[in-house]
């Protein structure tokens, strides 16, 4: 993994960072690179509230905010920004407002690498709208000034249409931090953690691959 000057991660939901990119984030932090994580919403519309439910629609945001801060802490993210949008509404927002907000972060931080979702290949409308806003912001820069843009994609057709991911990081060295980041989002990951711990114990290849490797598609303009 190349040493970056500054990394900017832009996702819409607390926990978006945990599954796909927390190993990558931890690796950058461990190399001494400052990482800013801009999280657009607090996942207010999440459906997981424990079983039996320990949260409700109105208490979920503060629980998820706490979990997000905890995940950022275990990953060593020094700059966590909560942008105050509402879950499931990103695609309905004024696109210029979103673009400008991201443009101003790029201007302020001058990142050498931005990580977001690949627009059109990221399943949740908030994911696609967030990725699209980042792409618009980066496209406004002159070509030689553009930071590298690594996108996460996981729609069923992503490999078929985009080809295999061109970036695959082995993050097994920071698997513990990744595991802790996923665990930090307890309200959302409680169900899956049990299965994951079991898979880890049995060295289930699918679970190991998910934990140890993180895939990105370099965005093509």
């Amino acid at each position, binding site marked *: 993994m190349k040493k970056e000057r500054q990394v900017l991660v832009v996702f819409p939901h607390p926990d978006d960072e945990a599954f796909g990119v927390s190993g990558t984030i931890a690796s950058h932090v461990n190399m001494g690179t400052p990482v800013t994580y801009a999280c657009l919403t607090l996942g207010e519309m999440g459906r997981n*509230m424990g079983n039996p*439910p320990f949260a409700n629609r*109105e208490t979920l945001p503060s629980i998820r905010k706490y979990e997000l801060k905890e995940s950022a802490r275990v990953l060593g993210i020094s700059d966590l920004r909560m942008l105050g949008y509402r879950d499931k509404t990103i695609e309905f927002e004024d696109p210029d407002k979103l673009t400008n907000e991201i443009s101003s972060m790029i201007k302020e931080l001058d990142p050498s690498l931005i990580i977001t979702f690949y627009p059109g290949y990221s399943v949740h409308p908030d994911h696609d709208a967030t990725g699209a806003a980042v792409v618009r912001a980066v496209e406004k820069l002159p070509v030689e000034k553009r930071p590298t843009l690594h996108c996460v994609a996981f729609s069923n057709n992503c490999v078929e249409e985009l080809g295999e991911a061109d970036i695959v990081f082995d993050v097994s060295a920071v698997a513990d931090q990744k595991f802790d980041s996923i665990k930090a989002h307890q309200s959302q990951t409680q169900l899956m953690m049990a299965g994951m711990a079991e898979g880890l114990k049995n060295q289930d290849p699918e679970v190991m691959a998910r934990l140890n490797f993180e895939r990105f598609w370099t965005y093509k303009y």
Partner: protein
Amino acid sequence: MDPVNMKSVQDALEGFLDTEVYVHLETTNGAYASHHNEQFFSAGAYIRNAKLTYERAKITGAGPYRVGLKIPFGWVYAEGITHYEQDDKGRLLLAGHDYDGKLAVALQISTTPFE
């Protein structure tokens, strides 16, 4: 949240009769339903802080429950309600959790806007 107690919910619903209230109503399959099963037709609806008054309210069914509010020119309705809570702000929170515990429907009533 506690499993629905019909009498408690009915009393709470009647506590807001003929009062200007803010209503949150949502139904959802989650944004991933069609990703996990491409045959699945995903649908949902959401309204937050609709301001209204109602003249009649009822919870009914054998569980999961249905709740209807009669408003001056129409109705508000939710199906699949399993849990309720009257929170420390006096708001009535009704929710339906599916077999995995995931939220499937919510109907909430408050005299002040939800944040």
